């Protein structure tokens, strides 16, 4: 019987969806190997904590310490590691999101635990947990396992579906961590949200543009379709390197690796490094006027046509169908 600790990261109103994705992954492990899922939240409010009950978590520890309202990944790491030690947990799950990548390695180091990051699959095999992890930006995958008793995994966002599974029992406990000043060595001093703009890592639909868009002044065609789909705007490396779009939108091996339900590549030829970043998408639509563009070899649906004609028409039709 193993104890699996899931880090529940506070979001705007409830915990982040990625935390529930981790809870669902933990549920799958427990279903085949037995065990118990414990949630670890930091300075959460009761409403937030209640939401964990819907995702198969039977116990949530709400961690508090002096200055726990400050966002500090070093402090979070120290607090979570303390709780994990005191409970004797066997497995810890984090999201491999922007805070997860700062916290999980530190927790693993504090617990002398092996750590596998950015997993896209976890399954029990005998006494081991076998993790699947993309490498070379998804051009390849490995199956890998951890050799230490305590195991830490981080999960790629948007891959594990957060599924509701109401827990039969539910208990909220509080845990007082004792931190030192050195635990606060990093602290978030300000946050600027792109209001109303979805990030490619969070979006269910992404519309990306390539060099064939010809200039930043034409990007409104991409933006309009993304808005119609309630999705995010992406870009190829050529477009970002030309300074037409910010780097945060770049999809590919030196940009972001995305896995939305729908990816629409507009005037993107399909360089290996771009394909690496988006081949995890569930459905890929390619629009390109060159019928021999490599992107057509990896798409579900392709339109051989000029984006300047196709995009407005496609936008109109999709808007009408919703």
């Amino acid at each position, binding site marked *: 019987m193993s104890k699996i600790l899931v880090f529940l990261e506070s979001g705007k109103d409830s915990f982040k969806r990625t935390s529930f994705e981790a809870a669902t992954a933990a549920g799958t492990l427990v279903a085949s190997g037995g065990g118990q899922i414990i949630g670890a939240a930091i300075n959460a409010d009761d409403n937030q904590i209640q939401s964990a009950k819907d995702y198969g978590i039977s116990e949530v520890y709400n961690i508090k310490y002096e200055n726990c309202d400050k966002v500090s990944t070093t402090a979070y790491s120290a607090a979570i590691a303390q709780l994990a030690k005191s409970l004797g947990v066997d497995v810890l799950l984090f999201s491999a999101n922007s805070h997860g990548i700062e916290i999980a*390695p530190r927790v693993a180091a504090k617990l002398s635990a092996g750590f596998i990051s950015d997993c896209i699959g976890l399954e029990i095999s005998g006494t081991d947990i076998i993790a699947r992890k993309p490498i070379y930006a998804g051009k390849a995958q490995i199956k890998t396992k951890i050799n230490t008793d305590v195991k830490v995994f981080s999960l790629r966002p948007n891959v594990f579906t957060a599924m509701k599974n109401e827990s039969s029992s539910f208990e909220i406990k509080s845990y007082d961590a004792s931190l030192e000043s050195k635990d606060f060595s990093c602290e978030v001093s300000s946050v600027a949200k792109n209001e109303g703009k979805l990030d490619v890592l969070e979006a269910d639909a992404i519309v990306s543009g390539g060099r064939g868009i010809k200039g930043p002044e034409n990007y409104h065609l991409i933006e309009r379709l993304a808005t119609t789909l309630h999705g995010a705007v992406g870009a190829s490396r050529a477009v970002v390197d030309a300074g037409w779009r910010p780097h945060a939108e770049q999809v590919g091996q030196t940009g972001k690796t995305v896995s939305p339900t*729908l990816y629409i590549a507009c005037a993107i030829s399909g360089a290996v490094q771009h394909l690496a970043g988006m081949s995890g998408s569930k459905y890929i639509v390619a629009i390109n006027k060159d019928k021999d563009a490599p992107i057509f070899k990896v798409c579900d649906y392709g339109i051989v046509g000029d984006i300047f004609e196709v995009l407005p028409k496609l936008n109109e039709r999709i808007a009408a169908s919703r």
Partner: protein
Amino acid sequence: MNILVCVSRVPDTTTRILVGPDGKTADKTGVKFVLNPFDEFALEEGLRLREKNGGSVTAVTVAGEVAKDILRTSLAMGADKVAIIKTENEFDSYFTAQNLAEFASNRAFDIILLGKQSIDYDSLQIPAYLGELLGIPSIGVVSKLQIEGNNVSAERDIEGGKEIVSAQLPCIISAQKGLNEPRYPKLPDIMKAKSKPIEEVAAIDCQPRTTILEMSIPSKKRAGVILDGSDGSLDKLVTLLHEEAKVI
């Protein structure tokens, strides 16, 4: 300012990856290896900090003998000193972080820079791991860096926005694309780099904490319905997205 930049040697981004004969790692035959693109941003930032504050830049890698080529590249870009922590065995992120920590522990670096990830195993775990082992702050995926005295202020991408993280030197920073525009080495510097010394350190022995069982290439096979740009085809596409893919 005493600056350390940790670099790694990876296949060029245009490489088609194939499974090697051991079934666990990539086939290295015919592959062009380069300095990890994200490490170029880290090195460039190190060089700019030295140009502004004085001091020296050391580039270090944990790797086998072959990786000396990326240390030569680092020297050509402007690193003052380079070192290789040598191992010819396969190793994991834990091994790398332990060895980098050992190397850095008694050399009093003010700042340690790395690429946000190495584009082979894409683990993004060394910066924070190293920070924990050395007991110093680490800020990952940084796209803007300001240092005033000992105060560090770093802007980093988060989901749907940016945050600014503050810390004190000594500190670890991992570089995101956009942090700067890396310089190209000049030909005379490339020539000079060939004769500069490379410090060799034997890797400390530590058992890997993870084991790779197998490597595979995921199938890219897709429906591949190709249509023209006519109005009728667009109607068909919307129908397919609606009824077959159920995404709109």
